């Protein structure tokens, strides 16, 4: 388990650097993100992981955001319809691609880490759309689905789970319980609004209170603009007893792609990250729109 080294660093109050965006980085490299490109362009995915490792990331996340059985099945009325007109591999596709996502991250580590401890985080988001808590499935159903996803990621060699862009305490709790039951370290990262609240209106104080007794290894904030992350850090830091962290997005969501802006070049990005560090953040990284250059800049923070 490569997580031990990360756990030690966090215990010693050292900063752990998480990688930056994968999906938007695929786009920035002029490859379509209509698919995760795990099967079609694995070399692109692997090279992004390698670039983040060389930039200095201690934890790299798999290219598996939103990748799950449900995401594929949601495009059909039901099982009968899917079997009738759907591609023949759909029942196994999510599992195969999830395993491939871990394999590519591990391969990148073998090629680029040069003996430095780098952990591979299984990046998983909410089962339904990350910005839409209203669509979340019931807890029992969610539990079954998270178990399937995490089991594949664990069997494939992931060192921890990074549950990201989570929009409710309820779904975070279910996923965390599943990760812990499988013996996986788990970081839970919430998306927050400009007031520092979850998209359900729940507080980060309540989130910390709910997740810490269940053994969450870190609580983070992600996929919001830097100012919103700052609001979230203010709301979270005074209440959290576990390590906390942040990785904002920069630029603008231009569905189905991303609009890159020059608002946060690496140096400025680093300045705001330094503020979060001062507020207590021990894990820093980047979400949509960030690049290996941003991560390299974070690694220069004193």
């Amino acid at each position: 388990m490569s997580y031990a080294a990360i756990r030690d660093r966090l215990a010693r109050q050292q900063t752990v650097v998480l990688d930056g965006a994968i999906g938007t980085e695929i786009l920035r490299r002029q490859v379509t993100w209509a698919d995760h490109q795990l099967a079609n362009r694995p070399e692109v995915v692997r090279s992004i992981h390698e670039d983040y490792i060389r930039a200095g990331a201690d934890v790299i996340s798999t290219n598996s955001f939103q990748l799950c059985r449900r995401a594929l099945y949601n495009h059909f009325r039901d099982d009968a319809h899917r079997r009738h007109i759907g591609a023949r591999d759909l029942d196994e596709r999510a599992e195969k691609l999830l395993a491939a996502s871990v394999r590519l991250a591990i391969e990148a580590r073998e090629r680029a880490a040069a003996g430095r401890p780098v952990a591979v985080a299984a990046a998983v988001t909410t089962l339904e759309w990350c910005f839409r808590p209203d669509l979340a499935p019931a807890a029992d159903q969610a539990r079954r689905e998270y178990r399937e996803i995490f089991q594949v990621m664990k069997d494939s060699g992931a060192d921890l789970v990074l549950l990201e862009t989570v929009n409710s305490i309820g779904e975070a709790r279910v996923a965390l319980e599943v990760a812990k039951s499988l013996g996986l370290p788990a970081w839970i990262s919430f998306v927050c609004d400009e007031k520092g609240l979850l998209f359900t209106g729940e507080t980060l104080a309540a989130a910390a209170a709910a997740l810490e007794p269940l053994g969450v290894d870190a609580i983070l904030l992600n996929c919001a603009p830097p100012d919103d992350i700052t609001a979230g850090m203010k709301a979270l830091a005074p209440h959290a007893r576990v390590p906390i962290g942040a990785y904002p997005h920069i630029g603008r969501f231009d569905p189905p792609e991303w609009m890159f802006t020059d608002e946060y070049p690496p140096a400025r990005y680093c300045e705001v990250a330094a503020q979060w560090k001062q507020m207590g953040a021990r894990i820093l990284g980047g979400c949509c729109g960030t690049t290996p250059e941003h991560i390299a800049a974070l690694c220069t923070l004193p």
Partner: protein
Amino acid sequence: MYDNIQARLQKGGTILLDGALGSELVRRGVRWRKHGLLTDADRVKQLHEEYLAAGADVLRTNTFQLNPRIFLNVFRNRQHMRHIGAPGLEDLAPQLVRTSVAQARQARAQAGLEKTVAIAGVLSPLEHCFRPDLAPPPDAARREHEELARVFAEEKVDFLLLESMNTLAEAKAALAAGRAVGLPVWVSFVLGPEGELLGREPLEKAVAEMEKGGAEVVLVNCAPPEDITRALGRMKKFATRPFGGFAHIGRFSPPSWKFDFFPQFTDTEEWPPDRYAREADRWREQGARVVGGCCGTGPAHIAALRAWLGKNGAGSPRP
């Protein structure tokens, strides 16, 4: 140009639609964003032109599953969209609709077919075409379809084609919206594996309701060719106006993330153009008066249909 199409239908002719836009653009390697309308305009126009060269009587706009909801749905709410979304997303869908009509119109002008080929403005379910359970309530559907129908009317499309409609309620709302803006309306339903509407309502009832509501043509689409054949065999018994169909070929291969509409079809080689035309032969036997191609088909399929129609005298080549 609708008069021309209408006259040919009245005289017993067969109208040939074009084939797929989205799945063909994806197959050609177009990066799927905003339907390619902004970033790959030349390739979209090129495809329209190829359908004209293949002999299509109707060009459909590249607007399937393009409406304001596809943008709004991926945000928490409108405020969140303004907060983190790209500028202009709120008004983007109508603008893209205008662009799509302009591109079809340019292709038609390029081919010198302004007088014979009609442009159909494509409306489709406001939510995912394969998810009848997500269909909006009728009043919202009416309002939102009318907003887009009005844009099509302003851009002077020749008629509206409601494509892959999956519930009767939304089809009725969209049909009323189209009629309200003064455009002729054709309605096409996506079939479920049972052979009825994907939303499980009976096809017979749907055809009757659409005819009552003023639909000029009722069609079935986005199901495998044999399913279309079976449905047309039934429509023959209860349709009182011209009817038709256009099948998808191959298998729908959705994206591995929660992308609303990504028209990727695999295994399309199972239905090469000649086989597709042979199946369409049976559609003509069932009395179909409008045929064409849905997802997975390309210009070669439309050319094969045109050749077949020519041989059988059913579709006097374009006047």
